[in-house]
C-alpha cells in the first residue's frame, strides 16, 4: 500500500481540500490499477485517507462498471443490460457470447483471457444492443459481428 499512498499524496497536492470528494474516483482507479480489482477494504482505506464517510466511497466503487470487484481476465466484455439494449436483444447477445466463450456472466475463461459481465447503461442507447470490451465500444451488435470481434481478440 505504501507506494500507492505516495501516488495518493502526489495527487492530493493538486486538489484543494474543499473538493477532496472529487478525489474518490481517481484514487479508486489508482487502486484498481495497482491491485487488479477492488474490495470493501480499499474503499475503507480511501475513506480513511480522505476523511470521508466510508459508505460514500463504497457507493462510488459499486456504481461504476469500470471498477471491477472481482478478479478479471485480459479482455473484459461488458454487455449493457439496461432498457434500450434489453429491448433490442441483450439476452440473445449474452447467450451467444456465453456459448462462444463457455462462461456465464460474471465468470472468467480458464485461460484468463476473457471475463463476461452484464452492466447497467453504458450510454450508447441509440446504438443498442452494444457492449464494451476494455475501452472500446462495439455497437449495433449482431451474432456475426460478435464472432468477428471475439476472433480478432483471440
Amino acid at each position, binding site marked *: 500500500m505504501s507506494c500507492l499512498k505516495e501516488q495518493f499524496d502526489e495527487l492530493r497536492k493538486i486538489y484543494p481540500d474543499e473538493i477532496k470528494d472529487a478525489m474518490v474516483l481517481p484514487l479508486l482507479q489508482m487502486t484498481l490499477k495497482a491491485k487488479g480489482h477492488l474490495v*470493501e*477494504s480499499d474503499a*475503507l482505506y480511501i475513506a480513511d485517507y480522505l476523511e470521508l*464517510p*466510508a*459508505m*460514500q466511497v*463504497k*457507493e462510488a466503487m*459499486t*456504481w461504476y*462498471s469500470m471498477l471491477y470487484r472481482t478478479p478479471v481476465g485480459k479482455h473484459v466484455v461488458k454487455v449493457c443490460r*439496461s432498457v434500450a439494449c434489453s429491448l433490442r436483444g441483450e439476452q440473445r447477445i449474452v447467450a451467444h457470447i456465453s456459448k462462444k466463450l463457455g462462461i456465464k456472466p460474471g465468470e472468467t475463461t480458464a485461460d484468463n483471457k476473457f471475463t463476461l459481465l452484464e452492466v*447497467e*447503461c453504458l450510454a450508447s442507447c441509440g446504438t443498442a444492443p452494444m457492449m464494451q470490451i476494455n475501452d472500446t465500444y462495439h455497437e449495433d451488435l449482431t451474432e456475426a459481428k460478435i464472432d468477428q470481434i471475439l476472433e480478432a481478440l483471440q
Partner: protein
Amino acid sequence: MSNIEFSIDDKKLEALPGETVLKAALRNGIDIPYLCYHPCLSIAGNCRICLVRIKGRPGFHPSCNLPVAPGMEIESDCEDVSAVRKNVMQFITLNHPVDCPVCDKAGECKLQNYHFKYNGSASLSIDAKKHKPKFYDVNERILLDAERCILCSRCVRFTHEISKSGMLGITERGQQSRVEHLESGAAKDDYSDNIIQNCPVGALLSRDFLYKSRVWYLEPVASVCNGCARGCSVDVWRRKHHWKVRALGSEKNRMAYRITAKQNDDINGRWICNKGFDLNKQINDFASRATKPAIGGMDATCQDALSEARKLIFEAKKPAAIVSAHASNEELEAFKKTLGSRVEVYVRKDYEPAAGEVVEDELLIKADKNPNSTKVEELFGKESFSAAAGHDLVLVWGDNVEYSALSGAKIIHLATQKPNGNPDVLIPISTQFERKGSYTNFEGKVNRFEQVFDKPELVLHASDVFGRL
C-alpha cells in the same frame, strides 16, 4: 426581500424568497404528492411523484427542486399531471411487492396512499418482479426489506446530514440498487430509529414493533421523553379504546406499542434519540413497578400507609425530604406548598449516565439524564442530601435510591418502582404516563405530557399524597 407572487392551479399565492414550488404549496395547504422530499434533508429529486407543469413551458418539472419565480403559473391538478403521476406510480411499483396486508407501514404509508389516489390500476408489467433481500440487518434495532424500498434516499441522507454516522449508502446501479451498510462493522447510530419513521414506505422496520399491531388499532398520545434534560416531544402509541382486547391478553390494553418522535421545533425538531424510542420498554416494565403500599415490608392499605407516614413525620425531630428531578412541575409546586416548609428539602437526580450510554452530543442528547432538574433546582436549590446533617426521618421521593446512604434514618418512600429494600413506609405513586403534567427542560422550555394510561388501583398521585401527610 419581498414575497414572490405566483399561482398554482389559478390560485394566487405568495412564496417566500428562495422557496420551492413544493414548499410554498404545502405551506398554503395545496397537496402536491412527494416521497423523497423531506423538509429537514437536502433535496434529492429522485422519486418524481411531485411533477408539475409550468404554463408556457414544455414538459414536467419536479416541484421539490423548482424555485418559485415571479409570475410563474403552476398546474398541479390537471389531467396531464395526473396521468404523469399515475405513470410514476406504475414505475415505482414495478418491482415493489405491494404486500400491504403484511406490511407494518400499511395505514400510514405514503406509497399506499398515492397508489390509491393516483394509480389505482393493476401493474402493467408482465415480467416477474426483481427480488432483493428481505430482512436485511441494518443494525440490532432495524431491518430493511429491500424489495419495498423505493430508493428515495431519505434514510441515507439522514445518516449523512443529521445523525452524521454515514452508516448507510446506496450501492450498485439500476435494478440492483439497494440501501446497504458496510459489510465490516455494525451500523452504529444513536439516532438510527428515526429512519424507520422517515421511510415513506415500509422498507425500514423496527424489530421491536415488527408485527406487533396494525397501526389503525393504535392512537398516539403526546408525551415527553424523560431520558435526559432535553425533554423531547414524543408520541406514545396505545391501543384505541374501540380496539381494546376483551379476552386474553388484557395487558395489551395498557402497553405502549411504540414511541415515535413528535415534531416540536422549539425542542427537538422532528427527531429523538434511540433512548427515546425505547421509552416503551420503561412503560411496559410491569415487573419492576411498585403497585402496593407497604409498612415495614408488609402489604398495607393506602389509608394505613398514609397514616403511618403522617405519624412518622409528626414524631420526627429533624425530618428531611429528598425530591426528585423526575417529578413534574405541578407535583413540585404542590410539594412546595404543602410539605416544603415543614421539612428540610434536598434535591436528587435519579439517574446518572448508564455504562455505555452516550453522555452528551451536539444534536439532542444531554449529559443530565433527568427531565426536570431545572425546575427542582429553581424551587429547592442544588443541595444534595448528606448523612452528616443528622436527620432522623427522610421522605424519599423518586427512584433508584440506595437506603444505605441515608444513615439509618426512618424512611418514607414515594416510588414508582419497587425499591431495593424495605422502607418504613412505601407509598407507590403514579408514573409520568399515568397523569398529565409538564417538565422544564435544560433551556427553561416547558413541555407538556398527557395521560396515557390509568394508574393501578392502589397507586396514588404524588401531589395528592403531600396534603394528606
